């Protein structure tokens, strides 16, 4: 066989293209890190510009948000309370429904039925939010106005409920993971002592899965806080420090949309407000995601509690 050319070809240098390719691919991987860095840098830079003109104290303590008026106030609370109110309503809808759905999928449904129901349920999370916004404004609000006296055309209740339907799949699927992770031995322990299925679910399974369920709710909260179009369309654009779900208000995300729709010149204080609000939004969702992620990672490692 061609033994005389062995000497030559074994020494052939590693292709340079191989190294170039590795570098290019690595750059693609780093681009995602760059994206995060970009987000942080942009938000910090513009928000710092904002905080040079508005004190952090005012931002955190003033109870009025009127940057587009002549008498300017820059207190985040009205926007924050709008976000929290719609989020609480969303969770109030999504948590019970999602939890019951998770119990059904993990404890009652036959595998084939669950296999059909899960992707169908996932569709709820796939509907574009502008479509949900339309539903909330033109269909849900008028329907609710028949039962809820004093419900205004823009309000927190209707977008909150619709948002709850949107985040239901997240809560359902993460809760289901948590329930499935409960060791069979615990369940069997309950059965062996004469417990019914219901008893086992409520006294053994759900308590053991509680941290996973909390992690699911936290992620749901994070999604609801960052959700934009539903509230921008159906909740109104009036920053208002209120707990009344029937009146128009404005969330943090909706404020960013409101300013973006106008023709605010770059470099102005108004322009910078959306980055200050965006930074608050980013920090909140990042923290919530991290906490939820941590909790789920711990459950996966074993040790349900």
């Amino acid at each position, binding site marked *: 066989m061609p033994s005389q050319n062995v000497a030559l070809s074994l020494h052939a240098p590693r292709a340079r293209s*191989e190294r170039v390719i590795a570098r290019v691919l690595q750059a*693609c991987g780093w681009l*995602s890190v760059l994206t995060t860095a970009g987000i942080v840098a942009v938000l910090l830079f513009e928000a710092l510009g904002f905080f040079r003109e508005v004190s952090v104290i005012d931002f955190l303590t003033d109870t009025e948000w009127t940057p587009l008026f002549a008498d300017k106030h820059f207190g985040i609370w009205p926007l924050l309370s709008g976000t929290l109110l719609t989020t609480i309503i969303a969770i109030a809808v999504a948590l019970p429904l999602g939890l019951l759905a998770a119990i*059904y999928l993990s404890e009652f449904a036959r595998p084939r039925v669950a296999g059909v129901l899960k992707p169908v349920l996932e569709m709820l999370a796939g509907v574009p939010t502008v479509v949900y916004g*339309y*539903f909330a404004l033109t269909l849900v609000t008028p329907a609710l106005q028949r039962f809820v006296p004093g419900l205004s055309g823009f309000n927190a209740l209707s977008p909150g409920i619709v948002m709850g339907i949107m985040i239901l799949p997240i809560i359902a699927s993460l809760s289901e993971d948590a329930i499935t992770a409960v060791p069979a031995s615990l369940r069997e322990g309950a059965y062996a002592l004469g417990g019914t299925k219901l008893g086992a679910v409520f006294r053994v399974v759900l308590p053991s899965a509680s941290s996973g369920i909390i992690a699911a709710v936290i992620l749901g909260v994070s999604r609801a806080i960052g959700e934009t179009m539903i509230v*921008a*369309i159906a909740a109104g654009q009036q920053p208002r420090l209120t707990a009344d779900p029937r009146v128009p208000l404005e969330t943090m995300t909706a404020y960013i949309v409101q300013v973006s729709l106008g023709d605010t010149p*770059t470099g102005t204080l108004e322009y910078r407000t959306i980055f200050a609000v965006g930074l608050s939004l980013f920090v909140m969702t990042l923290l919530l995601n*991290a906490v939820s992620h941590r909790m789920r990672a711990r459950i996966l490692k074993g040790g349900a509690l």
Partner: protein
Amino acid sequence: MTSVSAEADTAALAMRASQPPVELVSGSNGGVERAFRAICLLAILLPLMLLVLLFGGALIEAIPRLSWDFLTSYPSRRAAAAGILPALVGSAGLMLLTAVMAIPVGLGAAIYLEEYAKPGKVTALIELNISNLAGVPSIIYGLLGLEVFVRVLNLGRSLIAGAATLALLLLPMVIMASREALRTVPRSLREACFALGADRWQTLRQVVLPMCMPGVLTGVILSLARAIGETAPLITIGALTYVAFLPDSIDSPFTALPIQIFNWVSRPQPEFHINAAAGIVVLLALMLMMNGAAIWLRTRLRRRIYW
């Protein structure tokens, strides 16, 4: 672990205390359980039924407006004469540009993580970062795009700025889908290729990529189907809400279907809500078609891989 079993014990004790002493044939408990089961099932069916109801409502509302003219007309101040042509063209252009940017970078990053990166701190950092990015609200991407693409890179409120923003938004999804597809290629085939004297890149090009392409494309189309409904980041970077012309280059100002829908929903006049409903029907039809295309592509390309 001990706390778990302790809790189980107390729970079990509590259960025994609450039950009658000797009753082997019990009807009542089964009834309660069946009722609970029905409630759980209802928790799934109720939201789904509500969604169907809402879709039905939107469809009925939309019917008077759904016509060929609606698809081929420009927006107008008269609701009945308005159409979605610029929005459709804008969305198509956006999707195309987004795909062109997101596929190579996303697939490249996936290949790097699956095939090249050595496990370690740096790789863990990139992975953590990707999963974090997937949880960032889309409107934040809009702020990033506004500052970086529109202002710093001076692309203006253009199609390319919108597509670049959406591409960044899709990146985590494309990376995750591509990684999953890469993982389906068995190790033995890579080794066979190495044993023939191929280097890593050749193995990828000749064996791995042809096998995982259906999975990658399916993942990309599914993420594009999500991106076509994205509204908030496009509003933030300044997509126009009223466009009476078609984008003719990547620097053109543009509108997109969800933006047009948003614009019509925000009008107080109910006639425009009819337009919004019609736009929604078109948008959802497009999304359904893209999902169908993904499934079709997957089965069709699979057939070319002979198992």
